[in-house]
């Protein structure tokens, strides 16, 4: 299932109009991407001694695609999708997540994280454990806590399900740091972390993720009406193109400007990438002993004997 000819020209067409905008330089051979990712999921689980996986299914395209690919890799019966809405989450998110579950026929679980979040930040005039009244905590604090409560739920469910947590973050959000450390970025392995959002869309279309999910505006859904693109101030195709040329193709600032990217956008994206470096790396350890993990003690994660018995 290669990219449709239309896809190569950046105009994937479903017959009823443009499904999404695909910059031509980001077009990939979706059959190869699918093959590599499906093998990757299967290998990661098998090498760790697991046959099952679980993930947080938000109703968005990233987790939907990972659910499709994981189901293909290990069978839907070995996949658990966990829906974790907050009371202000868009009802559409849960509907779309249900669409994926129905399509795949995998197990699912719904955990309302409202009591956990409200227990900390308060509700109905009652202060929570954080000692602030409802509405006093910033959107950033609330968003981060939601992401981390979801992480807690996933890792707790992983014990019961006997599977590993499969990551759902894409390359675009990772590079600009649009993630919560130890929150949505927490996982055992990430199958789509090297795909830009535009490429996620391309692969999603190829594997049959429902169109409604591909079409809608991406959102972290941390507050009503939030969209990634409004929050970031640029569109995904534009951001993906810039990151691709800046990072994958090592273009200098001058070259990027000559290509038509605006100076302020280049500056801003460069700053986002640099300031989020810490989110993409394992926390550093002060070097003291003869051999230090990550420095001069370098073993493959899946070394012999590392798998769960």
């Amino acid at each position, binding site marked *: 299932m290669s990219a449709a000819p239309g896809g190569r020209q950046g105009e994937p067409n479903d017959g009823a109009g443009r499904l999404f905008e695909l910059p031509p330089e980001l*077009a990939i051979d979706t059959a*190869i991407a699918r093959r*590599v990712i499906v093998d990757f999921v299967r*290998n990661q689980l098998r090498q760790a001694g697991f046959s099952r996986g679980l993930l947080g299914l938000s109703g968005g395209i990233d987790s939907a695609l990972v659910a499709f690919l994981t189901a293909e890799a290990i069978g839907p019966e070995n996949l658990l999708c966990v829906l974790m809405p907050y009371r202000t989450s868009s009802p559409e998110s849960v509907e779309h997540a249900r669409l994926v579950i129905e399509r795949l026929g995998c197990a699912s679980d719904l955990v309302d994280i409202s009591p956990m979040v409200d227990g900390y930040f308060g509700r109905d005039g009652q202060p929570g454990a954080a000692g602030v009244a409802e509405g006093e905590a910033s959107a950033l604090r609330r968003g981060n806590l939601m992401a981390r409560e979801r992480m807690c739920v996933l890792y707790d469910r992983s014990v019961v399900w006997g599977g590993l947590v499969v990551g759902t973050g894409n390359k675009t959000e990772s590079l600009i740091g649009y993630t919560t450390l130890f929150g949505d970025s927490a996982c055992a392995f990430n199958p789509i972390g090297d795909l830009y959002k535009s490429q996620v869309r391309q692969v999603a279309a190829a594997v049959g993720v429902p169109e409604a999910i591909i079409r809608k505006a991406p959102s972290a859904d941390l507050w009503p009406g939030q969209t990634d693109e409004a929050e970031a101030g640029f569109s995904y195709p534009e951001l993906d193109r810039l990151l691709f040329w800046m990072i994958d193709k090592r273009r200098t600032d001058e070259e990027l400007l000559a290509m038509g990217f605006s100076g302020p956008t280049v500056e801003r994206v460069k700053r986002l990438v640099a300031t989020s470096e810490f989110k993409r790396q394992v926390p550093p350890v002060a070097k003291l002993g003869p051999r230090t993990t990550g420095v001069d*003690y370098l073993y*493959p994660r899946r070394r012999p004997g590392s798998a769960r018995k």
Partner: protein
Amino acid sequence: MQPLRIALVQFAPRLGVLEENLARHRELLAEARAAGAGLVVFPELGLTGYQLQDLAAEVAMRKDDPRLLGLAAGTDGLSTVVSFVEEADDHRLFISAALLEDGEVRFVHRKLFLPTYGLFDERRFFAAGDRLRTVDSRLGVKLGIAICEDFWHLGVAETLALDGAQLLINVSSSPGRDLAAIHEVGLGTAVSWRTLMRTYAQLTTSFAVFCNRVGMDETISFWGGSEVIAPSGEALFTAPLFDEGLYTVDVELGDVRRERIGLPLLRDERPELHLRELRRILAHRTGLEIDEASEPTEGGEVGPPGAKAAGRRDRRP
């Protein structure tokens, strides 16, 4: 001449599990023998897996290791190329490929070029080999054996051909990357390797055999796509991408003669010219004076203009 049946073992070793990989080699060797193969080629580090890091020392074998000799013992009437981490007497570790024939370890090639850039970190864990030799095989032709990155350096295939190789073998653990829709096969790495192997076969008028592994080590996936290219540059066989399998290809070794008679590129090679110019380049790069006496003195002076060159000319008797 009886056609030679080449078996390309495009398989996925298990990282760091030497015993299991040895057992798998024995099975696959038996399978290739049953299929009538005369030459069986396993991929780079097929006995150990690729992304070893600090495991390298733990899976290393000397070339007289009983486990390697045991594998060789099963090669009566067969030529087999296997690859492993070799520990030298002085405890340097090499990425090596051994030719096993008629029950013995006949030859060992140590990887010459260790990529240490991008996703590669080989120089950190391994020593680079420093000998490039062909080997006489029971097949009646000389073999030129190289490992992966060795073939990203132009001189290697040429030197092997000049040394008499008629069949070039490259064993690889090539990680797939540069995924795009614009390439002929959607994977930049595969396109590059196809270009390289066809070019080497055609320019050396030799058979070129490429055996690349599949499977995954950690985050990287190996893409397979093993090939056999005729001395004309024509692809005789291309294995599927990513699929594990033992693929057999029949070749007429006599095609080398036919090709070289019709297209005597190798006859017309000028190694003495290369050597002279390489000496000059090397002298320049290391800051040593050029031995002017070895340069042509008659007719068109090809040396660089300028005071330095003129000065040197003046010193001549």
